[in-house]
């Protein structure tokens, strides 16, 4: 009965797109309602911070930036808890031209590299550190919205997500003319797209959190099995999107969400080892000021309480 539905909202980390298809599918198919939740999906955007909105109670659930932003938020004293991790492996890659001067990571030195300062910069720094390169040895610039400077040859290395910019670049130049640098090749992983709730929610409404996870999982599994239908659902919310790109995106997102530990333990699995590695890295490079209580920041109990069969893709 509608009267008993609990109102709740999910704040995305970005604008509506197939990156979030599972949540839209779950809403469209009534999975949240079936769990007693009347869920509204609120898009994110530049200058909006999911962690902030969740911490203040403006939104009940959030899909936040990533492990790095969860750490930063906890470090600043924001009372949020991570209840699940979407992208099990680093979604960013660094792209250069195959015929260009950059052949190895060492070649980054002295070159113009653009990246986002929203987390991708940490990935870059991490990779450089593994190779013993100091950030000031290259020209790191903030990356603008457009990939045009890279396509035009004004930039040597550009940051891209597998599912978005990489697609745009490929639509402008052939895939085999590109060379990519992947974080995992350098032994680091930054899981991203974390689901978060306020500490109070986690403590006072654990059943609601579990219900939310169950419904979301169902939505995602449906999205993965019927990508066309899922893209339809997303495009109902954002009709001006480019369908081909969204389909590509969903395929890539599926790969990211089912990689690593998720292949064994299911979607939204919190890989404690990966989290710990990232934490130590951030601590070492001063991104966070003090060691954090990881058990308090990442509460795997909710996702673990759901039967493995429901979690596995």
């Amino acid at each position, binding site marked *: 009965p509608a009267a008993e539905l609990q109102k709740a909202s999910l*704040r995305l980390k970005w604008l509506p797109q197939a990156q979030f298809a599972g949540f839209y599918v779950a809403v469209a198919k009534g999975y949240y309602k079936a769990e007693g939740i009347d869920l509204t999906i609120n898009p*994110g*955007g530049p*200058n909006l911070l999911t962690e902030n909105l969740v911490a203040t109670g403006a939104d009940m659930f959030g899909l936040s930036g990533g492990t790095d932003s969860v750490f930063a938020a906890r470090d600043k004293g924001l009372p949020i808890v991570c209840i699940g991790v979407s992208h099990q492996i680093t979604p960013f890659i660094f792209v250069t031209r195959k015929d260009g001067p950059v052949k190895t990571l060492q070649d980054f030195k002295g070159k113009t590299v653009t990246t986002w300062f929203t987390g991708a910069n940490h990935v870059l720094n991490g990779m450089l550190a593994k190779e013993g390169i100091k950030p000031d040895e290259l020209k790191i610039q903030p990356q603008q*919205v457009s990939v045009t400077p890279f396509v035009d040859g004004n930039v040597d290395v550009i940051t891209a997500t597998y599912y978005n910019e990489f697609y*745009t670049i490929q639509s402008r130049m052939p895939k085999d003319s590109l060379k990519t640098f992947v974080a995992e090749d350098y032994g680091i992983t930054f899981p991203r797209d974390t689901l978060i709730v306020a500490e109070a929610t986690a403590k006072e409404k654990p059943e609601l959190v579990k219900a939310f996870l169950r419904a979301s999982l169902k939505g995602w599994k449906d999205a993965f099995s019927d990508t066309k239908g899922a893209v339809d659902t997303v495009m109902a*919310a954002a*009709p001006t999107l480019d369908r081909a790109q969204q389909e590509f995106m969903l395929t890539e997102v599926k790969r990211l969400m089912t990689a690593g530990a998720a292949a064994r333990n299911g979607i939204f699995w919190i890989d404690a080892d990966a989290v710990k590695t990232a934490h130590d890295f951030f601590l070492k490079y001063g991104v966070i000021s003090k060691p954090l209580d990881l058990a308090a920041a990442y509460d795997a109990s909710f996702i673990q309480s759901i039967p493995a069969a429901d979690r596995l893709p």
Partner: protein
Amino acid sequence: MSSPAATSLSDGRAAVRSITMPDSLRKLIRLLLGLAIAAVIWEGAVLLFGIRPYYLPRLSAILMAMAATPRAYVDGFLRTLAETLIGFASGGAFGVLMGVVFFRVRALREMVFPIFVVSQTIPVIAFGALVVLWFGNTLLAKAIIAFYLTFFPVTVNTLLGLETVDLRQVDLMRSFGASNGQLLLRLQLPTALPQIFVALRLAASLSLVGAIVGEWFGDTTGLGVLLLQAMFTENVVAIWGALLASALLGTGFYAVVAAVERRLVFWNAEQ
């Protein structure tokens, strides 16, 4: 207003219309012609100079893209229009009110007016997140940003307009035994009206800015949303689509305000 004035107004209107109708028709034709020429130049220049579509797409491509998903643009247009209107109306009303209050209570004006000025030096986009925090993800939140951008010029101009009131006219009214309220309604506000409308025309554009920027903070419909989405998916055609739609909204709203101004401030128009 009772009937005689009403008839007089409509008489005047009918007369004006009969004189200006061919003129306005000619203006409309000239406008359409101008638009057509601009469209041809645009289309031609892109083809002729081979401008790459991600710098400047062809107009026809943009229009076709808009026609492909008309609902998105119509919904966005209406939503943004609603936010703009609410922000404009509340900002205009509040602006006039504050103008009157500041005019009447000098001490308050000296205390608060500088703060108003400072408030206008704050970039909205920086505290847009706070608006979402305080007012949620609602239409209200957008309208408040539109309001915030709108009220200040209206306050300033209302105050300016009220201060241009001829003191001799005030004395005349007082010699008739007029109360403060009568003075305000019958003399001061009508005198300030032309100035107020100058600000309202400006506010028409500003309230649209407010609505669009407001939509950048996590909204789902609106021209601002379309613009942002297009921007971050690097969909240049869609950027132009959103831009054309907001140009239509902005010009239309501005024209409506200007038309209302011509109707209400009829005595100023003929100079």
